């Protein structure tokens, strides 16, 4: 089991404010979490960093976004799940940017 961290920027809803619930981020996180749990992984932490102005306007599927919802998810899983996760993240229209990082192998974590 390897500790990974997924950092994702999802597009906000049309009338989204700083405090409104991020519907698309929740659905993406739920999909990813289901994939991880189905393959006997463990989701450690889901942290939301809120609605933030993007570094530059991001264009996806003929629409430009200036604001995005940043969130992070740390989880333990096997390396074979990463392919599935990346497929999900690439096919989702609401995901603007994502980054999967390996935080540590189990042995490093213990030591």
């Amino acid at each position: 089991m390897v500790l990974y961290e997924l950092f994702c920027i999802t597009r906000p809803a049309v009338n989204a404010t700083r405090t409104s619930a991020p519907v698309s981020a929740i659905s993406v996180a739920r999909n990813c979490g289901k994939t991880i749990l189905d393959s006997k992984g463990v989701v450690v932490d889901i942290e939301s960093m809120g609605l933030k102005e993007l570094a530059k306007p991001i264009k996806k599927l003929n629409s430009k976004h200036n604001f995005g919802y940043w969130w992070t998810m740390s989880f333990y899983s096997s390396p074979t799940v990463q392919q599935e996760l990346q497929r999900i993240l690439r096919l989702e229209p609401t995901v603007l940017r994502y980054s999967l990082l390996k935080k540590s192998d189990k042995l490093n974590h213990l030591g």
Partner: protein
Amino acid sequence: MFTRKFFSSIENNSRHVLQTVSFQRNRPFCTGISLQAPNTQNSSVRKNAGFQRRSDSFIPPFLVPNVTEGQVYSPSDLKFETVEARNQGNFFNPKRHDCFKAANRSPLEFWKNPVVLSNFITELGRIKPRADTGLSAKNQRLVSRAIRRARAVGVLPTKHKSVYAEREK
């Protein structure tokens, strides 16, 4: 009135600053001396009270001798010439203050944090060299890696500082 010109350098930068300072003869040499008796309640709590610098009593660097508390010193340590010689030696080997070492943290933890990373990029968004940041070699490499990672994900802009960066007033 007594004036003295002094050629001093700002830490981590190789800029020359010509400093003209005047001080009056009747001002005490060392300000903020603790006048409490040794056996009072608070005498042991603030041990360095006599050497704490407060905002209203700024002592220019050419007046601060290289003498620490409890150290034996000679009259020649208090001369202008010795202080100036030591300060001019510091011009060539400036003390590197690594902020990540002081905080005991790795720079890679801050790759999602555009506020922190913007301190290490110029106004045009380029990564500052080690002479400007004052970091150790390892931390400079990790900061560069964090900045490149943040740029790739869209956390940090490429051509300017982040909107969330700290601004100078």
